[in-house]
């Protein structure tokens, strides 16, 4: 079932077009990859979906409803959560409190107000993400790879229907990335849609069922990992015109 659908989304900054009529989608219970070279417009797309930017044209639909004009916090309440490529952690709070406060914010707006035990849920997420050893540390002093997991934990605390991850594996080493891949599959299996922006191609190929490729603000390809790996347009975008090697 298609949960998120972006139709012909365009975004212009002054004269420069960051996105030109891009249509992408994401399904519930599926990890969808969104890849492309630097500057392709992936983060801009995320900003348009979460409402930090209002697209200059096109629509963003969530579960059939148009959310293009909604404020970011309203979209979050409908189940859109994200992490940031440039970290946006709450630097005055500890790792535990970063995750906990997300649950506390959620309990202010969610319908099952007061019923859920935020603290226990936060501990569960901390455990799940392998952050137990760091829970009492200041987020400003933990390594980037771990900080990205904190952002993911924070997003998960809102119990999202769709999770947008912006380069979550950068800063994590090989073994951590492997664990992280397992974690993504676990979240997917619980029915959450995941839209994954990531430069670690092996991770993308491993976990994504469907991949969409952006280049210079345009959608240039979409398909299964196998199709994308052999798509000439994708190879050209990544390797340049001469890609016979």
């Amino acid at each position, binding site marked *: 079932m298609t949960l998120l659908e972006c139709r012909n989304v365009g975004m212009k900054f002054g004269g420069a077009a960051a996105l030109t009529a891009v249509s992408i989608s994401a399904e519930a219970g599926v990890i969808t990859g969104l890849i492309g070279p630097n500057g392709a417009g992936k983060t801009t797309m995320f900003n348009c979906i979460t409402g930090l930017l209002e697209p200059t044209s096109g629509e963003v639909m969530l579960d059939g409803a148009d959310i293009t004009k909604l404020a970011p916090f309203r*979209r979050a309440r409908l189940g859109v959560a994200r992490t940031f490529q440039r970290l946006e952690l709450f630097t005055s709070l500890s790792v535990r409190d970063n995750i906990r406060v997300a649950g506390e914010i959620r309990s202010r707006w969610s319908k099952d107000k007061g019923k859920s035990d935020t603290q226990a849920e936060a501990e569960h997420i901390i455990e799940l993400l392998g952050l137990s050893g760091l829970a009492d540390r200041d987020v400003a002093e933990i390594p980037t790879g771990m900080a990205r997991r904190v952002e993911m934990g924070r997003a998960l605390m809102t119990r999202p229907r769709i999770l947008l991850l912006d380069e979550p594996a950068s800063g994590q080493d090989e073994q951590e990335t492997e664990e992280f891949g397992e974690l993504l599959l676990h979240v997917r299996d619980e029915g959450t849609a995941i839209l994954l922006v990531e430069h670690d191609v092996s991770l993308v190929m491993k976990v994504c069922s469907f991949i969409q490729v952006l280049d210079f603000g345009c959608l240039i390809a979409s398909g299964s990992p196998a199709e994308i790996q052999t798509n000439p347009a994708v190879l050209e975008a990544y390797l340049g015109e001469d890609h016979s090697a």
Partner: protein
Amino acid sequence: MQDFLAYTVLGLCLGSVYAIAATGLVVTYSTSGVFNIAHGAVATMSALFYWQLRFDWHAPAPIAIFLTVCVFAPLLGLVLEVVVMRGLRGTSEVTRLVTPVAVLLGINGAATWIWFRSSNRALVPKKFFGESNVKVLGQAVYYHQIIGVLLSIVIAGALYVLLYRTRLGVTMRATVDDRSLLMLNGGRPDRVSMASWAIGASLAGLAGVLLSPQLGALQVFALTLLVFDAYPAAVAGRLRSVPLTYVGAMVLGLSKLYFDWISDAGQRWLVLRNLRNAIPALLLFGALLLLPQDRLRGAIVTRTRERFRVPTMREAVLWGGVLVAAMAMLQSIMSGSAVISLANGVALSLMALSLVLLTGYAGEINLAVFTFAGVAVIAAWQFDVGPTGLATQKSLSVGAVLLAMCVCSLVGGLIALPALRLRGLYLGLATFAFGIIVYQLVILQTQPLHFNIFGGKFTVNLFTNGSLTVPRPHWFGINFAGQRAFLMLMTVLFAVLGIGIIAIRRSAYGRMIVAMKDSPAACATLGLNLTRLKLGVFMVSSAIAGLAGLMWAAERRTLPNNADFDGFQSLLLFMIAVVGGIGYVSGAFIAGIFLSVLSVVMPDVFDKLGSDYPSLHWLFVTVLGNFSHYVGPALVGIGLGKNPSGIAQQIMDGFRPLKKAPGATAIWVAAIVVLWAATWRGAVSNWHFSLISVGSLFIVPRIIMSVFEDRFAEEERAVAGEDLDLIGIDRAFRSSDRQVLDTALGLPAGPSGGVE
């Protein structure tokens, strides 16, 4: 119709001068991100400098103008950029606002010291070409005004050429977009900043010279306020666009002159006779409403330099108790006049406390704390005394306090509403404008207001006859009218409110407001309605400000309407609260005491020294006393860029060694208590007590540090781990080192996650 056209011409003349002032503000903001609230002070200083050259030393006008606008003002701007503003990179918005506030107060203090130290000298500047004028539609338009219009047109053109046609201009615009990218491309942002501050200051200087004849005789703060009037024009230009700023400036000039026209220069409606002075502030609110919603901002710098530790509840209660006990002991041995200074300080601390919640935790700004005090006083007075007239009430009732808090909270909510969807700076400006509006239209109003509501007559007493008397409370069967009792009441109130504020910080609500400060964008994507949360925090902190303001007023007993409400006291308090340590309750306490000590106690001490040693009178009174009074508070604010977390943090760091040497600390505390007892019995003078106890505050931690240095170093190694690079070189690798390495690398604990 002819009148209308004539007033339009005059309005455009005034608007031109505002445009010059406001574009200066825009030029500095758009290249440095600093809203230079000291712009008005630069203008004032330049106007005084011009007066000195032109009218005291009788220099020819062109030379005086050249030296003022092209030499003195730009140099002042350069010095500000190099010495002060450059240190602000990587600090929070609050610090970037407070430092220019300190500069403003410092420059104005210096100007007062230089030109107005000795009694009532009238400094009267004249217009260019004196009173020569041409008649336009029957209205005299002075050459001075025409020169203003011409200059503003020339400046508009020159700025356009500079920004769009020169290399410097391109670099200036690039600095705004991405400073580090510009550096990588061989640009020199430092030079650009210097240039823009020089240009901005030069424009301020020109505006100051052009505006000053309006005042008749020059006055430092009045002239600064006159230049403040131009700030809404810059806000209308979103602090970036020069053309929109010009439009805003013209609207501003025209509004003032049209008001003159329809109100017969303020004579028609006496209740509104000060409205003219409030027009810029009202327009600022209008401009704020028109501004588009801000793009949600993430953490601009990933890690600002300010850090605040949160005390546990146990610590909070313990320190609250210590504060009350120490104050009780202290006041019992202090002289009456010292108790008054201390009470004044604690009252200011209470007011600063409202800013800890608002600014320290939530990152929002209130530049009108004293205005809330004024509103609270009016509300409480209305409740206790009613419309009947003079104060007959002997004590302040609980009902009055509650009403005052509610009114402040509501008023706070109303003024914050238009600015909440914008960045914090705009809320700060909105509160400042609110302060000016209330000052001009309410607090300066000396007649009671009469309303007919649904046939019933209703009278509101404002500052009738220019002052209000606020009685002190008589609660829980205790009469707090006496100075010492009232000091203790305020201290207890401070402790209780402080503990309450720390409890808020430690609650879910507190975590949310801190999260909002750290990253608004992330909060929004978690589903938080930022506007509502900000509104709530602002209302709570306004209520605290109201309560604190009432106590401050009761401490003063009689409150004149012209002393503390013109906006500058609020700026000073805000600045000192940040200097004290805006993220700490203890910071608020330090701030109040500090302000009282610097502006009251030190000059008194120097006065006394001056009269004791007449031969050194000039040193103690003329130099040190005036310096401490006029420039002292500003100087500490200017130093903020170096230590943005404030004095409270420094003190806590200084006292850290005591924690590790509890025995020595206990001996020290016991010694002070013994000394206090001796003083109380009269065996030691209180002068010696304060000398020894205050001195020991500085010396004892150092002594403990040096005696136990080795042990501390060892413990620190144990906690932080040794220098990891040297493990295996300095000594053999131990299995316990693995844990240390894991922690340092941020790996999860346990056997599976370790580094082999």
